[in-house]
């Protein structure tokens, strides 16, 4: 490497002073000297004019004053707001754990009245933008604050490693996603129903008509209750031995809680998709899968499932992708929250149903 540098330098030494294009073109000729000043003055004047006169382009973006972070919460909020369009900040198909915002995201947030967020570290890429939004008087509603939360599998299991980090964390005041609580509350329709009064409240504060919104909120709650009953009925036929599941990342905690399933392990040891699997945990999980006769690993269609695929191949079991964090744009199955839950429930049910049989 040293040699290369020397050669490069030697080679550069052959240039004459005339080669100094910057000097020749920008610095030396006298008639060019004032150029930067002229450009700067020009830009400043354009800026000043731009600031002074209200721009005509304001009407171009007709954004709803209410935003949601994920496409799932956007759909739920839109239903509660009687079909009002609610754009999601995180585009359909993106994994909220890892998505990065753009300057346009910031512009959308600044133009909104209120934002529905999940919280608990799910949208960590947006935390700074939300801090600024709060400072600007925009309502940032965290739905995980209003439902009963469950611990993550790691915190719940209380294996030695998980325990240790928990203990040290309780001393730490500003831990968010690492508080040992699972953020994936939307995968339980009952908990979504519990968030609806908060969404209604937010809408009324943002100037929506109280009577209208309360009716729509109630109607949507009823649809969700029907969905809940439908999934319950579907899962009734499962025997106790069919009710153990393994997932890619720790995302199905609330679903399992609602429909009486047991998550015995996850391939990625966290509620966050951006972590790495470790060898010891994977080996232990493989043993657990074999001994519990689990025949399927449920993965997330938005994020990488290479570890799950490899494990499934090794143990000769199935991988079934679920729509856990985002709606889908193309297919019918993930078009709305209700459709997404129905699709997931059917996929889980049919995978588990076969597990009892050879």
């Amino acid at each position, binding site marked *: 490497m040293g040699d290369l540098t020397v050669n490069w330098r030697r080679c550069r030494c052959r240039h004459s002073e005339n080669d100094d294009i910057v000097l020749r073109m920008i610095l030396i000729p006298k008639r060019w000297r004032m150029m930067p000043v002229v450009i700067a003055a020009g830009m400043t004047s354009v800026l000043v004019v731009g600031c002074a006169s209200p721009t005509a382009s304001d009407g171009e973006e007709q954004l709803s004053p209410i935003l949601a972070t994920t496409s799932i919460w956007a759909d739920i909020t839109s239903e509660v707001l009687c079909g009002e369009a609610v754009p999601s900040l995180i585009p359909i198909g993106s994994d909220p754990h890892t998505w990065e915002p753009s*300057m346009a995201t910031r512009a959308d947030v600044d133009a909104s009245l209120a934002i529905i967020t999940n919280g608990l570290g799910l949208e960590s890429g947006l935390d700074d*933008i939300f801090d600024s939004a709060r400072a600007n008087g925009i309502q940032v509603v965290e739905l995980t604050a209003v439902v009963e939360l469950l611990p993550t599998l790691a915190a719940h299991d209380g294996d030695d490693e998980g325990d240790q980090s928990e203990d040290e964390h309780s001393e730490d005041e500003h831990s968010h996603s690492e508080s040992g609580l699972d953020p994936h509350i939307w995968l339980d329709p009952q908990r979504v129903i519990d968030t609806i009064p908060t969404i209604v409240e937010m809408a009324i504060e943002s100037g929506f008509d109280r009577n209208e919104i309360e009716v729509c909120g109630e109607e949507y709650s009823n649809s969700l209750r029907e969905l809940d009953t439908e999934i319950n009925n579907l899962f009734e036929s499962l025997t106790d031995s069919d009710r153990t599941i393994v997932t890619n990342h720790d995302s199905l905690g609330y679903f399992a809680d609602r429909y009486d399933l047991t998550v015995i392990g996850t391939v990625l040891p966290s509620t966050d998709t951006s972590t790495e699997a470790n060898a010891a945990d994977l080996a232990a999980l493989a043993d657990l899968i074999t001994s519990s006769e689990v025949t399927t690993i449920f993965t997330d269609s938005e994020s990488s499932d290479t570890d799950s695929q490899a494990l499934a191949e090794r143990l000769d079991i199935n991988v079934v992708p679920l729509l856990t964090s985002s709606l889908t744009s193309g297919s019918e199955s993930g078009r709305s929250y209700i459709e997404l839950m129905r699709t997931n429930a059917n996929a889980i049910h049919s995978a588990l149903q076969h597990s009892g049989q050879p």
Partner: protein
Amino acid sequence: MTWLINPYEWWISPLADHAFMRDAVLAASLVVICSATVGTWVVLRGLSFLGDALAHGVLPGIAIAWIIGANTSLGALIAALAMVGGVNLVKSSSPLPDDASIGILFVGFLSLAVVIMSAYGGSGDLNRFLFGSITSVNQRDIVSLAIVAVVTVVTIVALHRALLLGTFDVDQATLAGFRPRLVHLALLTLIAVVVVASFETVGSLLVFAFLIAPPATASLFSRRVSSIMIFAIIIGVASSYIGLVMSYHHRSAASATMALVNIIMFFAGIIIRSAITKQRTRAALH
């Protein structure tokens, strides 16, 4: 094509309409002033790999500081200085060439950061340090970046002769009464300070792009150190501005877009340079 057909709309109105865009451009420009002046010496002295290692070497410091609830910038600075010390230690106590000792520590620090993060479950807030928060720069960030920019420029100007002689002729530098090793250490410390000051704005994954790309582009067109620095600042500020406006119009991740524009500028520079050289050769022949 709006950027050509309606230039005001594309280039100016995002800034005119939004205070956060003006703050972002200002913060990115301050980052460029720090990184381009220091980066010029990084490029000229062939320290790019060390710069890269430092940019990522701050991560374990950030992770530890974040876990124990300490100031993350302080943690990052300690990690960066530990990296500088470690590289020198490995270099002086082993027969390995520079790049091998840097590589060893680079990988060591990076994996340490990943191990710490995974042991403490989820990387949640660490995203902020990997990708920065140029979308929501506040006044405090701008003030601290401005202070670092002033300190950087003053130090670089003060050390100019020592660095110049030390880079191209170590013996003469020693004869002239400069202490090349000390100056080198000061430069490394300055790189560490610049990396630490910039990572919260542009992110620790991309701060390296700001350190290397603008000076590299500028050095294609000039061999005078001071004009490389000035040209690098102009290129860096222009790239950041273009990147931010692109991120605004096309919804691309903000700091990655800025870094990418910086790199595209470098390749455009190579094309322009070879065109100029070709034309000169032709002119010389006729």
